[in-house]
């Protein structure tokens, strides 16, 4: 029966095919797991919920930084239909050629897909966004996504607050995948050091999407979703009014101001001049503005108060007075004659005309160079120590206890160490045992190799004001209402000089303001203790330096002012410090309008200034 065999053969073919298909299904559905993943990749879209970044306020709850919406324009090429290109270009403000180029660029981007949204234009202006919203229906396939960016209420304190920017590839790598391309992160200042607190925690929402990437619902009713945690609110220690006045006083000058509350170490104001408007780092021109500031020869991005070392000049005499007493080579009634300066062998350090001989308090008041050269000599050539080196190392240790020549540990990015030479430094220059006090005499009056940052100067002032201790200066007062978030900023760091040696020095500093070199800084009714400095430097005119604290008893503010290449300490630095003390203590600064006017109008940047060698280092972010 041929036909029966043929029927069997046909049936056999059918069953064979069915068998092949079942085997294929078995491999696809049972053995190969990859299709399950592919299916999830198809439909599961991970949407990031960005938390609001924490707000920044000053010590009096004055809002400094808040968040502002920004509008990014996205395009989904597949959904673009019947686009009136001319109208579109007009709204966005680009030419037709730019439109074409933009699309070409998008197509070349990594991860481009016709059905997936790509960024077409970042950060539309509010006006463009408004116009675009009206016509959104005409521009199918285009969509605006809202993100937040920082907005600064005042133009002040740019260096303190720092700025945020998009994360780099390296940061993404280091974050174990927490950060994604395009996320914002703190790049400098408080934004950087307190990124963890300010940044909050991103949330994730898993959404099912269809083949056109349109959302179709939650994945498993949000079982795997996480909530975004908003960034914490931070109160800075700065006083916005004081900061603003300081920046006005410092305008058109190069230099720094640091004001500290001695009893707490809180930084009341910190000014780096020239400064910049923090709002420059917001919006789509952020990159351009950054490059402009980077190229500016006056280095506005350089955070001088915490990074730039200056020779302290005569203010160093205050420190030497304390150390000299502690080393018992100097007593309040020790008097040295001044014959127009310090002379020893062929060595001569000049001094200005004043009464002579003077005891310690008087010598501080008139800032006698000769006196402090003697002090330095007795400290370093102290016979108590077997070798000069040992005596010098003792001095170094004292200075270190004042916070000089090392990082204090401020909660800001980019703090510098300053520079206090070690004995080995001189060994290298002069050879071991081939140097002594006279070789390095200029240190005694705060010159020579010394480099002290304005923060260190202010900290030393606070230490003197506290009669022997300082609390590490810091910029954050409270986080989300919780005061003193860092326990390390509650510790009193005692210096190696005994409290009993301070009164005579402080009296001398009071005399400086009352009838000494800084008479200009005197404010009736407020006992200010200060010391001027006029630091010679290799870059031009002397730096004008002043440090002071007030009131004398129960001090509320300690301040250090450096105005680069501007002359005597009393000319610029002292009046600025005086006005800021007045502002902080009395909440006004209008009793001496002539002084305010002279300071604010004083323009010291008319000629190109070769900066302090350290100031030419660009600040790295």
């Amino acid at each position, binding site marked *: 029966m041929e036909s029966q065999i*043929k*029927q069997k053969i046909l049936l056999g073919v059918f069953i064979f095919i069915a068998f092949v*298909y079942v085997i294929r299904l078995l491999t*696809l559905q049972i053995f190969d797991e990859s299709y*399950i993943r*592919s299916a999830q990749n*198809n439909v599961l879209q991970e949407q990031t919920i960005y938390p609001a970044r924490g707000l920044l306020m000053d010590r009096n709850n004055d809002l400094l930084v808040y968040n502002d919406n920004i509008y990014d324009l996205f395009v989904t090429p597949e959904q673009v239909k019947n686009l009136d290109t001319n109208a579109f270009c007009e709204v966005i403000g680009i030419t037709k050629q730019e439109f074409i180029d933009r699309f070409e660029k998008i197509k070349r981007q990594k991860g481009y897909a016709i059905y997936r949204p790509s960024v077409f234009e970042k950060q539309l202006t509010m006006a463009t966004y408004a116009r675009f919203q009206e016509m959104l229906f005409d521009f199918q396939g285009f969509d605006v996504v809202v993100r937040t960016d920082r907005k600064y209420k005042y133009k002040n304190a740019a260096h303190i607050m720092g700025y945020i920017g998009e994360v780099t590839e390296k940061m993404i790598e280091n974050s174990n995948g927490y950060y994604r391309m395009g996320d914002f992160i703190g790049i400098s200042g408080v934004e950087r050091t307190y990124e963890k607190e300010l940044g909050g925690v991103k949330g994730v929402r898993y959404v099912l999407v*269809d083949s056109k990437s349109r959302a179709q619902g939650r994945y498993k009713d949000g079982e795997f979703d996480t909530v975004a945690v908003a960034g914490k609110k931070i109160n800075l220690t700065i006083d916005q009014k004081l900061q603003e006045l300081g920046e006005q006083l410092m305008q058109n000058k190069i230099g720094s101001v640091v004001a500290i509350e001695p009893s707490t170490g809180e930084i009341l104001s910190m000014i780096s001049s020239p400064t910049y408007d923090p709002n420059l780092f917001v919006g789509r021109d952020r990159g351009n503005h950054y490059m402009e500031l980077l190229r500016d020869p006056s280095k506005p991005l350089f955070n001088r108060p915490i990074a730039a070392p200056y020779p302290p000049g005569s203010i160093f005499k205050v420190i030497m007075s304390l150390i000299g007493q502690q080393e018992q080579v100097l007593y309040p009634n020790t008097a040295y004659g001044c014959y127009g300066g310090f002379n020893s062998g062929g060595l001569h350090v000049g001094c200005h005309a004043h009464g002579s001989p003077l005891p310690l308090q008087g010598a501080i008041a008139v800032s006698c160079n000769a006196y402090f050269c003697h002090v330095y000599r007795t400290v370093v050539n102290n016979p108590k120590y077997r070798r000069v080196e040992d005596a010098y190392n003792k001095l170094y240790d004292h200075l270190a206890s004042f916070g000089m020549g090392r990082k204090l540990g401020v909660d800001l990015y980019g703090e510098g160490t300053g520079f206090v030479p070690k004995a080995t430094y001189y060994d290298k220059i002069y050879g071991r045992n081939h140097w002594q006090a006279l070789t390095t005499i200029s240190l005694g009056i705060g010159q020579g190799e010394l480099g002290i940052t304005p923060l260190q100067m202010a900290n030393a002032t606070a230490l003197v004001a506290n009669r022997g201790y300082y609390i590490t200066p810091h910029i954050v007062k409270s986080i989300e209402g919780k005061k003193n978030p860092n326990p390390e900023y509650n510790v009193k760091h005692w210096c190696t000089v005994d409290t009993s040696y301070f009164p005579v020095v402080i009296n001398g500093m009071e005399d400086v303001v009352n009838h000494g070199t800084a008479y200009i800084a005197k404010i009736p009714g407020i006992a200010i203790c200060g010391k001027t400095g006029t630091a010679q430097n290799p870059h031009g005119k002397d730096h004008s330096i002043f440090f002071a604290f007030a009131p004398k008893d129960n001090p509320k503010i300690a301040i250090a002012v450096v105005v680069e290449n501007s002359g005597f300490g009393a000319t610029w630095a002292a009046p600025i410090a005086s006005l800021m003390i007045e502002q902080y203590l009395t909440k006004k600064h209008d009793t001496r309008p002539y002084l305010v006017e002279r300071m604010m109008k004083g323009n010291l940047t008319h000629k190109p200034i070769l900066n302090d060698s350290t100031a030419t280092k660009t600040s790295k972010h």
Partner: protein
Amino acid sequence: MTQQQPKPASIDWLVLTLYCVFVIAGLLCIYASVYSETNPDIYDMDKNYGKQLLWIVVSAFLGLLILLVDEKLFYAFAYGFYGITILMLLATFAIGAEIKGSSSWIRIGSFQIQPAEFAKFGTALALAKYLSGYNIDFKNWKVKAISMAIIALPMAIILLQNETGSALVFASFSLVLYREGLPGWLLVVGVLLAVLGVMALLIKPLYIIIGLAVIAIAFLAMVRRTQLLVFLTIGMVIFASAYVSSIDYVFENVMQAHQRTRINVLLGKEVDLKGAGYNVQQSLIAIGSGGPIGKGFLEGTQNKFRFVPEQSTDFIFCTIGEEFGFLGSLLFISLYMLFLWRLMVMAERQRNKFNRIYGYSLVSILFFHFLINIGMTLGLMPVIGIPLPFFSYGGSALLSFTILLFIFIRLDANRVNELKSFD
């Protein structure tokens, strides 16, 4: 004594039940693939499933009508039906509406019908009638030629309409011819030619020709050479070489770009995840992600969210694979095989040659659709757009398969009466 009405008992209830199961399962699959949570109304006439429901009602009505009609009608008017379908096919050239690059549709009101679908049962009737005629012996070459011509005519017209898939379906009639006496070696040669053709697309024709020559020389070296054998072998090599070269020529010069791409993707020569390959890739993902027991009815994300193109028509099997998994797919294939087997048994039990040939035509067409359609969704066959009978969305297909099936059920039902008339 003539009995016009078939007895209910003589209707094959198994086939009828399977038909109902397939159509309803198909409707649910279409519903699942177009489903959206915001609009779950299955009667929505704007949606595919709403329309399909309408077509099912129409089909059921037509099926009932066929069961009530005198079965002699189909025999008597077999050539008439054939002629009408050929005319309809030709009509598409004059009044055809172009849909998706093929001009094979005729628009009637808001519905389109595809004459190519109806040409199948017209051809089945005509072939059955011709071969069941008196003095028709399939061994006769003339009979073979006429049979081929009956099949080739609609096939050619459909090819001209750019409906390659529908045209290929007519190749399934070769199985009928095989059952009716076409020697098996011809089919084997056909399959061999197909394999050679695929090789021609994969490898440079020159290499194949060299390979064939080597095989021929080796063959001649091993056997006792007669002059006839040598000439025969050389002739076969020359023929095969010409065939391979012409396949290559047709591929490069006659075929259209999208057809070339589809073939290349199928053969693995080209990875095109956006075009033809995208369909297959998404189809594999949908089926593969179903796992052993599937994601559940209406839970198939790949189908629901439109990742699989043509999911309610050609790729309807993806819905089964994704939502009902391996078990569902296995059940589907088993039921389909049961259906084919039952129809084959029915065809074999016909005493009437016309009935049997028609039955085999039906089985062959249904098998061919199964072979290509499921093979395509599993990535084993080229992406040729032909529907899965009774499942895929499409009025013309459902109607034509219903007519095709119900005519056979009607013919089979009369078998009892025929026996009685012999009494």
